[in-house]
Protein backbone atom coordinates (compact mmCIF):
# COMPACT_ATOMS: atom_id res chain seq x y z
CA UNK A 1 0.00 0.00 0.00
CA UNK A 2 1.40 3.42 -0.79
CA UNK A 3 2.29 5.71 2.05
CA UNK A 4 -0.40 8.14 1.04
CA UNK A 5 -2.81 5.90 2.85
CA UNK A 6 -0.47 5.77 5.84
CA UNK A 7 -0.55 9.52 6.05
CA UNK A 8 -4.26 9.60 5.70
CA UNK A 9 -4.51 6.85 8.27
CA UNK A 10 -2.49 8.91 10.67
CA UNK A 11 -4.69 11.93 10.15
CA UNK A 12 -7.79 9.84 10.62
CA UNK A 13 -6.42 8.39 13.81
CA UNK A 14 -5.64 11.84 15.14
CA UNK A 15 -9.13 13.03 14.29
CA UNK A 16 -10.82 10.04 15.88
CA UNK A 17 -8.76 10.18 19.02
CA UNK A 18 -9.43 13.90 19.36
CA UNK A 19 -13.16 13.40 18.98
CA UNK A 20 -13.04 10.49 21.39
CA UNK A 21 -11.31 12.66 23.96
CA UNK A 22 -13.87 15.40 23.55
CA UNK A 23 -16.75 12.97 23.85
CA UNK A 24 -15.23 11.30 26.89
CA UNK A 25 -14.88 14.69 28.55
CA UNK A 26 -18.48 15.64 27.83
CA UNK A 27 -19.69 12.31 29.14
CA UNK A 28 -17.65 12.73 32.30
CA UNK A 29 -19.04 16.22 32.69
CA UNK A 30 -22.57 14.95 32.28
CA UNK A 31 -22.05 12.16 34.75
CA UNK A 32 -20.59 14.32 37.50
CA UNK A 33 -23.82 16.09 38.52
CA UNK A 34 -25.85 13.02 37.54
CA UNK A 35 -24.03 10.85 40.02
CA UNK A 36 -24.24 13.56 42.61
CA UNK A 37 -20.50 14.14 42.85
CA UNK A 38 -21.19 17.84 42.56
CA UNK A 39 -24.55 19.49 42.98
CA UNK A 40 -26.10 20.41 39.65
CA UNK A 41 -26.66 23.85 41.05
CA UNK A 42 -22.93 24.47 40.86
CA UNK A 43 -22.07 22.23 37.93
CA UNK A 44 -25.01 22.02 35.57
CA UNK A 45 -25.54 19.21 33.09
CA UNK A 46 -23.76 19.48 29.80
CA UNK A 47 -27.05 19.15 28.02
CA UNK A 48 -28.49 22.09 29.93
CA UNK A 49 -25.48 24.23 29.22
CA UNK A 50 -25.59 23.54 25.52
CA UNK A 51 -29.33 24.07 25.35
CA UNK A 52 -28.83 27.42 27.01
CA UNK A 53 -26.00 28.15 24.62
CA UNK A 54 -28.20 27.64 21.60
CA UNK A 55 -30.93 29.73 23.17
CA UNK A 56 -28.47 32.55 23.55
CA UNK A 57 -27.36 32.17 19.95
CA UNK A 58 -30.93 32.86 18.92
CA UNK A 59 -31.14 35.93 21.13
CA UNK A 60 -30.33 39.25 19.50
CA UNK A 61 -29.33 40.76 22.82
CA UNK A 62 -26.58 38.18 23.13
CA UNK A 63 -25.06 39.15 19.82
CA UNK A 64 -25.31 42.80 20.70
CA UNK A 65 -23.34 42.26 23.88
CA UNK A 66 -20.85 40.10 22.09
CA UNK A 67 -20.48 42.90 19.59
CA UNK A 68 -19.70 45.32 22.39
CA UNK A 69 -17.00 43.04 23.70
CA UNK A 70 -15.45 42.69 20.28
CA UNK A 71 -15.71 46.43 19.72
CA UNK A 72 -13.71 47.30 22.79
CA UNK A 73 -11.33 44.52 21.85
CA UNK A 74 -10.85 45.89 18.37
CA UNK A 75 -10.48 49.50 19.42
CA UNK A 76 -8.08 48.66 22.21
CA UNK A 77 -5.99 46.42 19.99
CA UNK A 78 -5.80 48.97 17.19
CA UNK A 79 -4.82 51.87 19.42
CA UNK A 80 -2.24 49.76 21.22
CA UNK A 81 -0.76 48.44 17.99
CA UNK A 82 -0.46 51.84 16.36
CA UNK A 83 1.10 53.39 19.45
CA UNK A 84 3.47 50.47 19.88
CA UNK A 85 4.43 50.51 16.21
CA UNK A 86 5.31 54.20 16.26
CA UNK A 87 7.03 54.26 19.63
CA UNK A 88 8.66 50.90 19.12
CA UNK A 89 10.13 51.91 15.79
CA UNK A 90 11.51 55.14 17.17
CA UNK A 91 12.97 53.54 20.25
CA UNK A 92 14.26 50.57 18.29
CA UNK A 93 16.07 52.67 15.74
CA UNK A 94 17.79 55.02 18.17
CA UNK A 95 20.23 53.05 20.35
CA UNK A 96 20.60 55.59 23.13
CA UNK A 97 16.82 55.80 23.41
CA UNK A 98 16.71 52.07 23.89
CA UNK A 99 19.16 52.27 26.73
CA UNK A 100 17.45 55.24 28.27
CA UNK A 101 14.01 53.66 28.25
CA UNK A 102 15.16 50.17 29.22
CA UNK A 103 14.64 50.59 32.98
CA UNK A 104 11.21 52.12 32.63
CA UNK A 105 10.09 49.44 30.22
CA UNK A 106 11.35 46.68 32.47
CA UNK A 107 9.53 48.23 35.42
CA UNK A 108 6.24 49.00 33.73
CA UNK A 109 5.99 45.77 31.78
CA UNK A 110 5.55 43.32 34.64
CA UNK A 111 2.83 45.42 36.27
CA UNK A 112 -0.34 43.46 35.71
CA UNK A 113 -2.65 45.81 33.87
CA UNK A 114 -5.51 44.62 36.05
CA UNK A 115 -3.78 46.42 38.88
CA UNK A 116 -4.69 49.64 37.12
CA UNK A 117 -8.39 48.87 37.08
CA UNK A 118 -9.12 50.87 40.23
CA UNK A 119 -7.30 53.84 38.76
CA UNK A 120 -9.16 53.53 35.47
CA UNK A 121 -12.45 53.38 37.33
CA UNK A 122 -11.55 56.48 39.30
CA UNK A 123 -10.74 58.36 36.15
CA UNK A 124 -13.48 57.23 33.82
CA UNK A 125 -16.15 55.65 35.93
CA UNK A 126 -17.78 52.35 35.15
CA UNK A 127 -17.71 52.68 31.39
CA UNK A 128 -16.09 51.30 28.27
CA UNK A 129 -13.45 54.04 28.41
CA UNK A 130 -12.05 52.62 31.60
CA UNK A 131 -11.92 49.17 30.01
CA UNK A 132 -10.14 50.57 26.98
CA UNK A 133 -7.38 52.04 29.12
CA UNK A 134 -6.67 48.63 30.58
CA UNK A 135 -6.83 46.86 27.24
CA UNK A 136 -4.53 49.34 25.58
CA UNK A 137 -2.02 49.26 28.44
CA UNK A 138 -1.65 45.49 28.36
CA UNK A 139 -1.68 45.02 24.59
CA UNK A 140 0.75 47.84 24.04
CA UNK A 141 3.65 46.06 25.73
CA UNK A 142 3.21 42.90 23.70
CA UNK A 143 3.55 44.72 20.41
CA UNK A 144 6.07 47.27 21.65
CA UNK A 145 8.62 44.69 22.74
CA UNK A 146 8.27 42.71 19.53
CA UNK A 147 8.66 45.79 17.35
CA UNK A 148 11.82 46.78 19.16
CA UNK A 149 13.26 43.32 18.56
CA UNK A 150 12.22 43.42 14.95
CA UNK A 151 13.67 46.82 14.25
CA UNK A 152 16.90 45.88 15.98
CA UNK A 153 17.13 42.70 13.98
CA UNK A 154 17.88 44.46 10.72
CA UNK A 155 20.81 42.75 9.12
CA UNK A 156 23.85 45.03 9.39
CA UNK A 157 25.16 44.12 5.97
CA UNK A 158 21.83 44.95 4.40
CA UNK A 159 21.76 48.23 6.22
CA UNK A 160 25.27 49.17 5.15
CA UNK A 161 24.38 48.28 1.59
CA UNK A 162 21.35 50.53 1.74
CA UNK A 163 23.32 53.42 3.08
CA UNK A 164 26.13 53.06 0.60
CA UNK A 165 23.59 53.19 -2.19
CA UNK A 166 22.31 56.44 -0.81
CA UNK A 167 18.79 55.42 0.10
CA UNK A 168 16.96 58.11 2.00
CA UNK A 169 15.85 57.51 5.54
CA UNK A 170 12.27 57.03 4.48
CA UNK A 171 13.25 54.55 1.77
CA UNK A 172 15.40 52.64 4.22
CA UNK A 173 12.48 52.55 6.58
CA UNK A 174 10.04 51.15 4.11
CA UNK A 175 12.31 48.80 2.18
CA UNK A 176 14.54 47.54 4.91
CA UNK A 177 13.32 48.12 8.42
CA UNK A 178 9.64 47.44 8.03
CA UNK A 179 9.97 44.14 6.16
CA UNK A 180 12.47 42.88 8.73
CA UNK A 181 10.23 43.90 11.57
CA UNK A 182 7.08 42.56 9.98
CA UNK A 183 7.18 38.98 11.33
CA UNK A 184 7.94 40.29 14.78
CA UNK A 185 5.02 42.65 14.47
CA UNK A 186 2.78 39.75 13.51
CA UNK A 187 3.89 37.74 16.51
CA UNK A 188 3.30 40.73 18.75
CA UNK A 189 -0.10 41.24 17.17
CA UNK A 190 -1.11 37.66 17.85
CA UNK A 191 -0.03 37.90 21.46
CA UNK A 192 -1.68 41.27 21.88
CA UNK A 193 -4.92 40.04 20.34
CA UNK A 194 -5.15 37.27 22.91
CA UNK A 195 -4.29 39.61 25.76
CA UNK A 196 -6.75 42.23 24.56
CA UNK A 197 -9.54 39.70 24.49
CA UNK A 198 -8.76 38.50 27.97
CA UNK A 199 -8.75 42.03 29.32
CA UNK A 200 -11.83 43.14 27.43
CA UNK A 201 -13.79 40.36 29.06
CA UNK A 202 -12.13 40.83 32.43
CA UNK A 203 -12.84 44.53 32.44
CA UNK A 204 -16.48 43.88 31.70
CA UNK A 205 -16.58 41.38 34.51
CA UNK A 206 -15.22 43.74 37.10
CA UNK A 207 -15.99 47.22 35.86
CA UNK A 208 -19.38 46.26 34.57
CA UNK A 209 -19.49 47.89 31.15
CA UNK A 210 -21.90 45.94 28.99
CA UNK A 211 -20.60 42.89 27.19
CA UNK A 212 -19.84 39.23 27.50
CA UNK A 213 -17.91 39.57 30.73
CA UNK A 214 -20.74 41.44 32.37
CA UNK A 215 -23.11 38.67 31.35
CA UNK A 216 -20.92 36.17 33.15
CA UNK A 217 -20.77 38.22 36.32
CA UNK A 218 -24.51 38.93 36.29
CA UNK A 219 -25.26 35.26 35.85
CA UNK A 220 -23.01 34.39 38.72
CA UNK A 221 -24.48 36.87 41.14
CA UNK A 222 -27.96 35.72 40.14
CA UNK A 223 -26.97 32.13 40.83
CA UNK A 224 -27.57 31.23 37.19
CA UNK A 225 -24.90 28.54 36.90
CA UNK A 226 -26.04 27.35 33.49
CA UNK A 227 -25.59 30.84 32.17
CA UNK A 228 -22.12 31.15 33.64
CA UNK A 229 -20.94 27.94 32.04
CA UNK A 230 -22.59 28.72 28.75
CA UNK A 231 -20.85 32.08 28.53
CA UNK A 232 -17.54 30.58 29.59
CA UNK A 233 -17.83 28.21 26.66
CA UNK A 234 -18.46 31.21 24.42
CA UNK A 235 -15.31 32.93 25.68
CA UNK A 236 -13.34 29.77 25.00
CA UNK A 237 -14.65 29.61 21.46
CA UNK A 238 -13.89 33.29 20.98
CA UNK A 239 -10.38 32.79 22.27
CA UNK A 240 -9.89 29.88 19.90
CA UNK A 241 -11.21 31.88 16.96
CA UNK A 242 -8.95 34.86 17.65
CA UNK A 243 -5.96 32.55 18.10
CA UNK A 244 -6.61 30.66 14.87
CA UNK A 245 -7.12 33.79 12.81
CA UNK A 246 -4.02 35.52 14.04
CA UNK A 247 -1.85 32.43 13.80
CA UNK A 248 -2.97 32.12 10.22
CA UNK A 249 -2.13 35.75 9.47
CA UNK A 250 1.21 35.37 11.19
CA UNK A 251 2.09 32.29 9.23
CA UNK A 252 1.18 33.90 5.93
CA UNK A 253 3.37 36.93 6.49
CA UNK A 254 6.09 34.67 7.78
CA UNK A 255 6.12 32.46 4.72
CA UNK A 256 9.05 34.15 3.07
CA UNK A 257 10.91 35.24 6.17
CA UNK A 258 13.25 33.00 8.06
CA UNK A 259 14.18 35.06 11.05
CA UNK A 260 14.14 33.67 14.52
CA UNK A 261 11.64 35.51 16.61
CA UNK A 262 12.06 36.48 20.21
CA UNK A 263 8.79 35.12 21.46
CA UNK A 264 10.24 31.88 22.71
CA UNK A 265 13.08 32.55 25.03
CA UNK A 266 14.64 35.83 25.84
Amino acid sequence: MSVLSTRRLRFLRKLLLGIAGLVAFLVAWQLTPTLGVVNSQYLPYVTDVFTRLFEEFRDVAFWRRLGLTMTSWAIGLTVATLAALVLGTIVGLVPWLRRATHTMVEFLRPIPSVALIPLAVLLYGLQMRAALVIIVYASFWQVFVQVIYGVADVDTVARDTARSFGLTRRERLSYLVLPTALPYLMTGLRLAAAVALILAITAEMVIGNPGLGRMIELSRSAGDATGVYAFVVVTGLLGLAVNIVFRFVERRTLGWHQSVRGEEIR
Partner: protein
Amino acid sequence: MPDRSTLLRVEHLRKVYESAAGEVEAIGDISFTMSAGELVCIVGPSGCGKTTLLKCLAGLLRPTSGLVEMDGSPVTGPNPTMAVVFQEYGRSLYPWLTVRANVELPLRHKKLSRAERDTLVADAIEAVGLPHAARSHPWELSGGMQQRVAIARAIAYQPEVLIMDEPFAAVDAQTRADLEDLVRELHGTRKISTVFVTHDIDESVYLGERVLMLSSSPTWVQEDLPIDLPPERDQLTTRALPRFTELRTHVYDQIQRAKRGSAAAPQSAH
Protein backbone atom coordinates in the same frame (compact mmCIF):
# COMPACT_ATOMS: atom_id res chain seq x y z
CA MET B 1 41.20 -19.26 8.25
CA PRO B 2 42.69 -16.72 10.67
CA ASP B 3 43.04 -17.84 14.24
CA ARG B 4 40.89 -14.97 15.44
CA SER B 5 37.28 -15.91 16.03
CA THR B 6 34.45 -14.51 14.01
CA LEU B 7 32.86 -11.77 15.98
CA LEU B 8 30.30 -10.27 13.67
CA ARG B 9 28.47 -12.12 10.96
CA VAL B 10 26.09 -10.54 8.49
CA GLU B 11 24.23 -12.82 6.10
CA HIS B 12 21.99 -11.72 3.26
CA LEU B 13 20.93 -8.57 5.04
CA ARG B 14 18.06 -6.81 3.32
CA LYS B 15 16.25 -3.64 4.37
CA VAL B 16 13.26 -2.12 2.65
CA TYR B 17 11.76 1.24 3.55
CA GLU B 18 8.34 2.69 2.87
CA SER B 19 8.59 6.19 1.57
CA ALA B 20 6.46 8.77 -0.20
CA ALA B 21 7.54 7.34 -3.53
CA GLY B 22 6.72 3.77 -2.62
CA GLU B 23 9.07 1.08 -1.41
CA VAL B 24 12.77 1.82 -1.30
CA GLU B 25 15.21 -1.05 -1.12
CA ALA B 26 17.96 0.57 0.90
CA ILE B 27 19.97 -2.63 1.25
CA GLY B 28 19.62 -5.44 -1.24
CA ASP B 29 21.86 -8.25 -0.08
CA ILE B 30 24.85 -7.71 2.17
CA SER B 31 26.97 -10.49 3.58
CA PHE B 32 30.31 -10.28 5.33
CA THR B 33 32.04 -11.38 8.48
CA MET B 34 34.37 -9.61 10.81
CA SER B 35 36.90 -11.21 13.12
CA ALA B 36 37.71 -10.00 16.59
CA GLY B 37 40.16 -7.13 16.64
CA GLU B 38 39.76 -6.14 13.01
CA LEU B 39 39.38 -2.62 11.69
CA VAL B 40 37.00 -2.80 8.76
CA CYS B 41 36.16 0.23 6.64
CA ILE B 42 32.98 0.46 4.61
CA VAL B 43 32.82 2.81 1.63
CA GLY B 44 30.20 3.36 -1.01
CA PRO B 45 28.57 6.00 -3.20
CA SER B 46 26.25 8.45 -1.46
CA GLY B 47 22.83 7.17 -0.70
CA CYS B 48 23.88 3.54 -0.87
CA GLY B 49 22.55 2.79 2.56
CA LYS B 50 25.74 2.91 4.61
CA THR B 51 23.97 4.49 7.54
CA THR B 52 21.11 2.01 7.24
CA LEU B 53 23.62 -0.82 7.37
CA LEU B 54 25.21 0.62 10.48
CA LYS B 55 21.90 1.01 12.20
CA CYS B 56 21.04 -2.61 11.42
CA LEU B 57 24.40 -3.70 12.81
CA ALA B 58 23.90 -1.68 15.96
CA GLY B 59 20.42 -3.03 16.50
CA LEU B 60 18.75 0.34 15.99
CA LEU B 61 16.87 -0.93 12.95
CA ARG B 62 15.25 -4.27 12.24
CA PRO B 63 16.28 -5.78 8.93
CA THR B 64 13.54 -6.82 6.54
CA SER B 65 15.26 -10.15 6.07
CA GLY B 66 18.65 -11.66 6.69
CA LEU B 67 20.79 -12.12 9.72
CA VAL B 68 23.06 -10.05 11.91
CA GLU B 69 24.93 -12.08 14.47
CA MET B 70 27.24 -10.96 17.24
CA ASP B 71 29.29 -13.59 19.01
CA GLY B 72 27.00 -16.26 17.68
CA SER B 73 23.72 -14.75 18.84
CA PRO B 74 21.42 -12.69 16.66
CA VAL B 75 21.22 -8.93 17.15
CA THR B 76 17.66 -7.93 17.97
CA GLY B 77 18.23 -4.55 19.52
CA PRO B 78 20.92 -2.34 20.96
CA ASN B 79 23.13 -4.30 23.29
CA PRO B 80 26.18 -3.64 25.45
CA THR B 81 28.57 -5.28 23.03
CA MET B 82 28.31 -2.43 20.56
CA ALA B 83 28.88 1.32 20.82
CA VAL B 84 28.13 3.85 18.12
CA VAL B 85 29.85 7.12 17.27
CA PHE B 86 27.47 9.24 15.23
CA GLN B 87 28.38 11.74 12.58
CA GLU B 88 26.49 14.64 14.10
CA TYR B 89 28.45 15.02 17.30
CA GLY B 90 26.72 18.32 17.98
CA ARG B 91 23.42 16.54 18.29
CA SER B 92 24.70 13.36 19.86
CA LEU B 93 26.42 14.83 22.89
CA TYR B 94 24.14 16.34 25.52
CA PRO B 95 24.85 20.07 25.89
CA TRP B 96 23.60 20.30 29.46
CA LEU B 97 26.12 17.72 30.66
CA THR B 98 29.83 18.23 31.03
CA VAL B 99 32.24 16.17 29.00
CA ARG B 100 32.78 13.88 31.94
CA ALA B 101 29.06 13.47 32.56
CA ASN B 102 28.49 12.70 28.89
CA VAL B 103 31.11 9.96 28.93
CA GLU B 104 29.75 8.59 32.17
CA LEU B 105 26.10 8.49 31.20
CA PRO B 106 26.00 5.12 29.39
CA LEU B 107 27.93 3.52 32.25
CA ARG B 108 25.39 4.43 34.88
CA HIS B 109 23.15 1.48 34.30
CA LYS B 110 25.97 -1.00 34.05
CA LYS B 111 26.61 -2.89 37.24
CA LEU B 112 29.82 -1.14 38.22
CA SER B 113 31.07 0.33 41.42
CA ARG B 114 31.61 4.05 41.63
CA ALA B 115 35.37 3.62 41.57
CA GLU B 116 35.29 1.36 38.53
CA ARG B 117 33.10 3.79 36.68
CA ASP B 118 35.32 6.75 37.51
CA THR B 119 38.37 4.85 36.35
CA LEU B 120 36.79 3.92 33.05
CA VAL B 121 35.69 7.48 32.44
CA ALA B 122 39.02 9.05 33.34
CA ASP B 123 40.80 6.46 31.28
CA ALA B 124 38.71 7.06 28.20
CA ILE B 125 38.97 10.84 28.42
CA GLU B 126 42.73 10.51 28.79
CA ALA B 127 42.94 8.13 25.85
CA VAL B 128 41.39 10.65 23.49
CA GLY B 129 43.63 13.39 24.78
CA LEU B 130 41.10 15.56 26.61
CA PRO B 131 41.92 15.31 30.34
CA HIS B 132 41.85 19.10 30.73
CA ALA B 133 38.42 19.39 29.16
CA ALA B 134 36.58 17.01 31.46
CA ARG B 135 34.68 19.81 33.19
CA SER B 136 33.79 21.74 30.07
CA HIS B 137 30.58 21.50 28.18
CA PRO B 138 30.62 20.09 24.65
CA TRP B 139 29.65 23.35 23.01
CA GLU B 140 32.66 25.04 24.56
CA LEU B 141 34.90 22.75 22.53
CA SER B 142 35.82 22.64 18.87
CA GLY B 143 34.25 20.15 16.48
CA GLY B 144 37.23 17.84 16.56
CA MET B 145 37.29 17.82 20.35
CA GLN B 146 33.59 17.13 20.51
CA GLN B 147 34.03 14.11 18.32
CA ARG B 148 36.82 12.94 20.61
CA VAL B 149 34.36 13.14 23.47
CA ALA B 150 31.93 10.98 21.50
CA ILE B 151 34.72 8.48 20.89
CA ALA B 152 35.65 8.52 24.57
CA ARG B 153 32.03 7.83 25.45
CA ALA B 154 31.99 4.87 23.11
CA ILE B 155 35.20 3.31 24.36
CA ALA B 156 34.37 3.87 28.02
CA TYR B 157 31.33 1.73 27.38
CA GLN B 158 33.77 -1.13 26.73
CA PRO B 159 32.03 -2.58 23.73
CA GLU B 160 33.28 -5.50 21.71
CA VAL B 161 32.61 -3.65 18.50
CA LEU B 162 33.01 0.04 17.88
CA ILE B 163 30.74 1.32 15.13
CA MET B 164 31.56 4.68 13.60
CA ASP B 165 29.23 6.37 11.15
CA GLU B 166 31.20 8.81 9.00
CA PRO B 167 32.46 10.37 12.23
CA PHE B 168 34.88 12.79 10.63
CA ALA B 169 32.78 13.99 7.75
CA ALA B 170 31.84 17.22 9.51
CA VAL B 171 35.33 18.11 10.61
CA ASP B 172 38.10 20.03 8.84
CA ALA B 173 40.90 18.18 7.07
CA GLN B 174 43.67 18.81 9.59
CA THR B 175 41.53 17.74 12.50
CA ARG B 176 40.43 14.75 10.51
CA ALA B 177 44.01 13.58 10.13
CA ASP B 178 44.52 13.78 13.91
CA LEU B 179 41.33 11.90 14.55
CA GLU B 180 42.19 9.18 12.06
CA ASP B 181 45.46 8.64 13.89
CA LEU B 182 43.55 8.55 17.14
CA VAL B 183 41.35 5.78 15.83
CA ARG B 184 44.33 3.76 14.66
CA GLU B 185 46.04 4.26 17.98
CA LEU B 186 42.99 3.22 19.98
CA HIS B 187 42.54 0.21 17.77
CA GLY B 188 46.20 -0.69 18.19
CA THR B 189 46.38 -0.33 21.98
CA ARG B 190 42.96 -1.58 22.95
CA LYS B 191 42.34 -4.06 20.18
CA ILE B 192 38.71 -3.04 19.81
CA SER B 193 37.04 -4.40 16.70
CA THR B 194 35.94 -1.42 14.66
CA VAL B 195 33.52 -0.92 11.82
CA PHE B 196 34.22 2.42 10.21
CA VAL B 197 31.88 3.84 7.60
CA THR B 198 33.12 6.67 5.42
CA HIS B 199 32.70 8.25 2.05
CA ASP B 200 36.34 9.34 2.01
CA ILE B 201 38.24 6.77 -0.03
CA ASP B 202 41.70 7.79 1.14
CA GLU B 203 40.57 7.59 4.71
CA SER B 204 39.21 4.10 4.26
CA VAL B 205 42.48 2.83 2.81
CA TYR B 206 44.59 4.63 5.40
CA LEU B 207 42.60 3.31 8.34
CA GLY B 208 41.36 -0.09 7.38
CA GLU B 209 42.71 -3.59 7.50
CA ARG B 210 39.93 -4.42 5.10
CA VAL B 211 37.79 -2.22 2.92
CA LEU B 212 34.27 -3.28 2.02
CA MET B 213 33.00 -1.51 -1.07
CA LEU B 214 29.25 -1.21 -1.40
CA SER B 215 27.37 -0.87 -4.63
CA SER B 216 24.66 1.67 -5.19
CA SER B 217 21.06 0.87 -4.38
CA PRO B 218 19.93 -1.97 -4.00
CA THR B 219 23.13 -2.31 -2.06
CA TRP B 220 25.35 -5.36 -1.95
CA VAL B 221 29.01 -5.89 -1.19
CA GLN B 222 30.80 -5.19 -4.42
CA GLU B 223 34.23 -6.10 -3.17
CA ASP B 224 35.99 -7.07 0.05
CA LEU B 225 39.54 -5.82 -0.22
CA PRO B 226 42.29 -6.64 2.27
CA ILE B 227 44.68 -3.75 2.83
CA ASP B 228 48.22 -5.05 2.93
CA LEU B 229 49.83 -1.86 4.14
CA PRO B 230 52.09 -2.09 7.20
CA PRO B 231 50.25 -1.86 10.52
CA GLU B 232 52.25 1.15 11.67
CA ARG B 233 50.82 3.92 9.60
CA ASP B 234 51.67 7.55 9.34
CA GLN B 235 49.86 10.36 7.58
CA LEU B 236 52.90 11.40 5.57
CA THR B 237 54.80 8.25 4.76
CA THR B 238 51.96 5.78 4.39
CA ARG B 239 50.06 7.98 2.05
CA ALA B 240 53.16 8.39 -0.08
CA LEU B 241 53.63 4.65 -0.53
CA PRO B 242 53.08 3.35 -4.06
CA ARG B 243 50.97 0.55 -2.68
CA PHE B 244 48.71 3.11 -1.03
CA THR B 245 48.15 4.79 -4.37
CA GLU B 246 47.41 1.45 -6.01
CA LEU B 247 44.92 0.53 -3.39
CA ARG B 248 43.13 3.83 -3.36
CA THR B 249 42.94 3.91 -7.13
CA HIS B 250 41.40 0.50 -7.07
CA VAL B 251 38.84 1.51 -4.51
CA TYR B 252 38.08 4.70 -6.37
CA ASP B 253 37.58 2.70 -9.52
CA GLN B 254 35.18 0.35 -7.85
CA ILE B 255 33.16 3.19 -6.39
CA GLN B 256 32.89 4.83 -9.78
CA ARG B 257 31.65 1.56 -11.22
CA ALA B 258 29.23 1.27 -8.36
CA LYS B 259 27.88 4.75 -9.10
CA ARG B 260 27.39 3.88 -12.70
CA GLY B 261 25.73 0.64 -11.66
CA SER B 262 27.85 -1.31 -14.10
CA ALA B 263 29.17 -3.94 -11.69
CA ALA B 264 27.30 -7.21 -11.81
CA ALA B 265 25.16 -8.21 -8.86
CA PRO B 266 25.77 -11.64 -7.32
CA GLN B 267 23.21 -14.42 -7.58
CA SER B 268 20.53 -13.21 -5.19
CA ALA B 269 19.55 -15.69 -2.53
CA HIS B 270 16.46 -14.14 -0.94
